[in-house]
């Protein structure tokens, strides 16, 4: 598929992506009275072979961004450029061809597998949809090879999802996503429904696959420790916008946006010797995305907010520490240390 031109530059380029969900009133005659601005101007690039983490709290737009990248939702505005093609506009056979290149692993391994189908037909379904491996023996061999790749016993080809544990089901989901050899894999909270001991099994599997197959992955999670473990670069989202983006090491060692700092400081660390330090958690709640604050969207909760913050929206800029930050008054090292960010260096 990939041409000489497509092989250069980033795999995906997202520009000013916007997704608004209309809020309507009335049953028969629906009037639009507002919009939930789930994603409100996101720009980012995904390099070939990297793992990009997207973190943020409930309602920040991270899952909506993923669904837009998959074309499971239609964008309100903006562009998603995948190997030179703007996928927000394509239809029909071309859309189907792109869907083949972008695959997804879902959060809940219980509801994302059809309970009435055998594991073999679940993992083989992408072949059926795209009319590949049409010879039965060939398809079975390929499915069994995939099962082995993700650490499932190929002899379990004819079993049903209920015969597997949560961790094994997530492996089935991973095998299905890998079936078509996609160029981009989107994992939306792939381990948050799993128990701690099982979570590690799935994370190790994903890391191993990344290394072995050179996958490009978008890894969406709310758990900042997991994202740090898995990703090369991280984007932090707040109310539909990216507030900070940069290489993993830089972002965790020296977060510049006060929201990134607050998120990192809030993570409980499994070490009681760090217990003593008094913490000052971020106050308040995330405002409604239907009516986001003016200027910088974080100013209503930001301890550093000044008058400028409520009137002028900050742009994503390099502030000299390796990340791009959308903040008028980024954090200093002293402030990061004071907040109790445990990954700071």
């Amino acid at each position, binding site marked *: 598929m990939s041409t000489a031109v497509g092989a250069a530059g980033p795999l995906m380029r997202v520009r000013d992506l916007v997704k608004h969900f209309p809020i309507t009133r009335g049953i028969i005659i629906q009037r639009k009275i507002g919009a939930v601005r789930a994603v409100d101007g996101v720009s980012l690039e995904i390099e070939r072979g990297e793992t990009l983490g997207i973190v943020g709290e409930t309602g920040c737009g991270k899952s909506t961004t993923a669904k837009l990248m998959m074309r499971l939702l239609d964008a309100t505005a903006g562009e998603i450029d995948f190997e030179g093609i703007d996928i927000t506009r394509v239809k029909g056979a071309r859309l189907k061809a792109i869907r083949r290149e972008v695959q997804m692993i879902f959060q809940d391994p219980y509801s994302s597998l059809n309970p009435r189908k055998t594991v073999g037909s679940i993992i083989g379904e992408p072949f059926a949809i795209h009319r590949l491996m049409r010879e039965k023996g060939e398809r079975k061999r390929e499915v069994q090879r995939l099962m082995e790749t993700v650490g499932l016993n190929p002899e379990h080809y004819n079993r049903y999802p209920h015969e597997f544990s949560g961790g094994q089901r997530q492996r089935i989901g991973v095998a299905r996503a890998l079936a078509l050899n996609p160029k981009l894999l989107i994992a939306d909270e792939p381990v948050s429904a799993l128990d701690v*001991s099982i979570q590690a*099994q799935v994370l190790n599997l994903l890391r191993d696959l990344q290394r072995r197959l050179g996958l490009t992955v978008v890894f969406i999670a709310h758990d900042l420790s997991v994202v740090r473990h*898995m990703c090369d670069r991280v984007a932090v989202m707040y109310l539909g916008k990216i507030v900070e983006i940069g290489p993993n090491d830089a972002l965790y060692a020296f977060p510049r946006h006060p929201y990134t700092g607050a998120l990192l400081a*809030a993570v409980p660390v*499994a070490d*009681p010797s760090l217990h003593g330090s008094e913490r000052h958690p971020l106050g308040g709640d995330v405002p409604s995305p239907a009516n986001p604050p003016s200027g910088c969207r974080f100013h209503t909760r930001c301890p550093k907010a000044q008058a400028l913050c409520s009137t002028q929206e900050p742009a994503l800029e390099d502030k000299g520490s390796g990340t791009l930050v959308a903040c008028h008054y980024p954090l200093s090292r002293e402030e990061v240390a004071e907040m109790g960010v445990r990954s700071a260096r």
Partner: protein
Amino acid sequence: MSAAEPLLRVEDLRVEFPTEDGIVHAVDGITYQVHKGRTLGIVGESGSGKTVSSLTTLGLTRRQGARISGRILFEGKDLVTLPEDELRAIRGNDIAMVFQDPLSSLHPLYRVGRQLTEAVRAHRDVSKAKARERAVELLGLVGIPDPARRVDEYPHEFSGGMRQRVMIAMALANEPKLLIADEPTTALDVTVQAQILALMERLQRELGMAIVIITHDLGVVAEMADDIAVMYAGRIVETASATRVFSAPEHPYTWGLLKSIPRLDGSREEDLVPIPGTPPSLINPPSGCHFHPRCPYAQPDHARIDPALEPVPDEPGHHVACLLEADVRRRLWEQLGAGKTPEEALAEVGLPGAAPA
């Protein structure tokens, strides 16, 4: 450890549920205590029995046909055998509980204030007006802005974090001596979780209550707990001060838990060491040590012998249920702490390796 009489003492508690498939041994003989003003963290994965044991403390498993044996002593009374009406006088009064999901624990059709006054008036003979005053006071106590107005709102008008504050306010209505919090922050975002944990710590300091916090999150117990009990398949496999559990854990399951979480301040290069296999069935738990099928260090006789929770030599307050020699355990943990895999640690210590199922 104080020598004073503990506020709550659970002795050899067993809870079994007869089902069509067989008897579920949800809690299989656990013993622990909670002292006044202290926090006990109960850690375990789904199905380890941590929730059932605390529901039983409040008598909430009685109606589900559970077979309960053992003793739960609270201020000299045995809650297992206490008549229902006497138990009701304690529940929500001296012992209160906060549940995981604040949305499903609040009645959607009643105003928050009404639900709070109900909690107050269930145990205190006060007028409606007085109870309402108390409700406003409680909402203020848990940090809800403008409590006099919000007391008349419905649960859906509150955010997730605010609802959990309402749940805590309700639990505190009668100034309990013991607060049981079952995964109180699992449904919440990380910044809101930090708010709720800070709130619980502040209220504990101000009101002097004891807290039992049940969670699967090792970070949360490290932040909150003075003492920790680790549960696996209905049993306590290790109990010690929080500092000991994290710095010198004795049980292979605890090692497994600690090694399987990525840490914000840990090395990124190191791979996680997952615990092989899956949690066992509680209908047919494994013979001998319940953990042996998943334990990389299990020896052949561990499938036969059932380990008791015994004191760790020279470490008062630290108990572990493991069949390995104390000395062997110490050497294994040294190896694991240095970043060795279980296989490497076994070879180093000179134990024959086990083949986990």
